[in-house]
């Protein structure tokens, strides 16, 4: 029997102490927590920063590290945000501070999730076919040297194997950069020889913390007890429960196919999985199957720098202005083209997001009616920061004083909530690498080191 605890769905989302204490009373063999993702978009990988404030990461680690060390429970965590070397090091620095504060000595096996561009270029030159992980025109079908060179930096979702190497050394912690979320939970049970179908299914539920509980949240914990032929899963906060529906329906969450979950060397087949209410708050799962394939791939993720964004937020209330909104916005775009006639049009893009009309759904909006007021978000993306700001500023003055013949005055067509009106929204990054890299050795591109934190 193995007992595994996920103290939350994501590092920095909050680790409730009481739920952790309840879990520790159940004597877990392992605690694991995901801290990396692409969910929050490409910006963080490009800017090399975390969407969670470092203070939130510190708060969680300050709860976890002293308690887990005292209880002698090994901890596996992916760090942090995009999972680059820099965000991993920022997290290790926080861990050092926490360790010193509590006088802890922690032996950690550290795994980098960042992949060197030279390594990828060599692999492509050597003939590796690195196919895109999603069928989309935004990605090359097979990764090219140009894609790699255009990427600001590249990470890969390591599988369970590099983590297993660390666990064999008997460390207090394994700290990874970008990793497959399920790998954090699966490494230890796979090392112990448990059924891979059950292990991967259990891991898939645990990685989101209490998101699979009723009521769901990623800021609370989930506990699993793994046996040879089934596993039990329940939240440790007594105010939540696991139900057959909440656990079964979780296989839908953020997944393309609820019956099939691909991993590096096969897929989890949930078509025959069975869910039973074991007790009021616990669900028993059986029948999850692992179907191996004879190739091992990891997902590599990279972003390219696309330019700079300037934005402006304003409100429009005049009924005549709103009735003529499209012709006014098109007129403004035309004037920008004339005013910036020396700038090639492909060097910038203008988007008007009209909140209250169709900003959320765009062309698929079933009710594109303008009500009595609209919020207008002006988005300008340009090759150069100054150009984005200049175009957005020109749009500001032109739209504000736009002289449409139907308007009864052009003193000001817009209500601005604050000054400054035009805001620099920073660099724009887009995913240009999202491909499956075949590996002979699952550990090959992931650099590792053994370190002592604190003490």
């Amino acid at each position, binding site marked *: 029997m193995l007992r595994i605890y996920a103290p939350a769905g994501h590092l920095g989302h909050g680790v409730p102490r009481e739920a952790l204490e309840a879990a520790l009373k159940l004597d877990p063999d392992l605690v694991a927590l995901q801290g990396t993702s692409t969910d929050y*978009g490409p910006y963080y990988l490009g800017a090399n920063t975390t969407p969670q404030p470092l203070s939130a990461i510190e708060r969680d680690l300050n709860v976890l590290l002293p308690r887990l060390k005292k209880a002698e429970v090994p901890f596996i965590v992916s760090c942090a945000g995009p999972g680059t070397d820099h965000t991993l090091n920022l997290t290790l620095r926080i861990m050092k501070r926490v360790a010193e504060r509590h006088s802890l000595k922690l032996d950690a096996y550290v795994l980098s999730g960042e992949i060197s561009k030279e390594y990828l270029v060599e692999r492509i030159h050597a003939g590796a076919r690195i196919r895109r992980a999603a069928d989309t025109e935004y990605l090359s079908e097979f990764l090219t040297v140009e894609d790699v060179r255009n990427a600001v930096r590249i990470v890969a979702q390591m599988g369970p194997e590099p983590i297993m190497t660390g666990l064999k050394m008997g460390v207090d912690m394994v700290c990874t950069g970008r990793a497959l979320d399920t790998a954090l939970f699966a490494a230890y049970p796979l090392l112990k020889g448990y059924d891979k179908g059950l292990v991967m299914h259990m891991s898939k539920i645990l990685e989101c913390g209490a998101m699979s509980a009723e009521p769901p949240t990623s800021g609370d914990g989930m506990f699993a007890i793994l046996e040879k032929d089934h596993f039990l899963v329940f939240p440790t906060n007594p105010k939540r429960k696991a139900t057959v529906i909440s656990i079964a329906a979780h296989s839908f969450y*953020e997944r393309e*196919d*609820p*019956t099939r979950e691909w991993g590096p060397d096969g897929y989890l087949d949930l078509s025959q999985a069975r869910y039973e209410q074991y007790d009021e708050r616990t669900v028993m799962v059986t029948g999850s199957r692992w179907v191996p394939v004879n190739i091992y791939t990891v997902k590599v993720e990279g972003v390219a720098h696309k330019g700079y964004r300037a934005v402006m937020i304003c409100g429009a209330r005049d009924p005549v202005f709103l009735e003529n909104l499209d012709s006014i916005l098109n007129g403004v775009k035309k004037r920008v083209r004339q005013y910036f006639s020396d700038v090639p049009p492909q060097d910038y893009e203008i988007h008007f997001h009209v909140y209250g009309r169709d900003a959320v759904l765009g062309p698929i909006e*079933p009710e594109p009616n303008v009500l009595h007021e609209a919020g207008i978000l002006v988005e300008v993306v340009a090759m150069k920061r100054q150009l984005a700001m200049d175009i957005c500023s020109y749009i500001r003055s032109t739209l504000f004083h736009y002289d449409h013949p139907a308007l009864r005055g052009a003193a000001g067509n817009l209500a601005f909530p604050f000054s400054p009106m035009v805001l620099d929204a920073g660099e724009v990054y887009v995913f240009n690498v999202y491909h499956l890299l075949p590996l002979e050795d699952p550990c090959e591109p992931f650099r590792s080191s053994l370190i002592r934190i604190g003490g």
Partner: protein
Amino acid sequence: MRLREVASVVRSKLAGPFILTIDVFVHSRETYFKIKSKKLINEELISRLYRVPREKIRIIYCDHVNGIKIAMPMPKPPGEPGCRDIYGAQQHIPLLNVAIE
């Protein structure tokens, strides 16, 4: 009846940066099997509501949870200029009023 009246959950979210997915869980087993057997949620309908070519749409019915999973390409992936919804969290709306007869 409209879908919003027979479903316990209608939600949307990205699965990776490039795939938009929508989950529908239907309250009653009877209604779920009616939707499934009559194919009331089908590729044709999604293609029309979301302006996505039919062949790019995948629909999976999951009997054990009365669930329907719809997957299609994200029109503009997160980060792209003009992207409207980086999590794809509000893209289920066009389905809410689909008639369930």
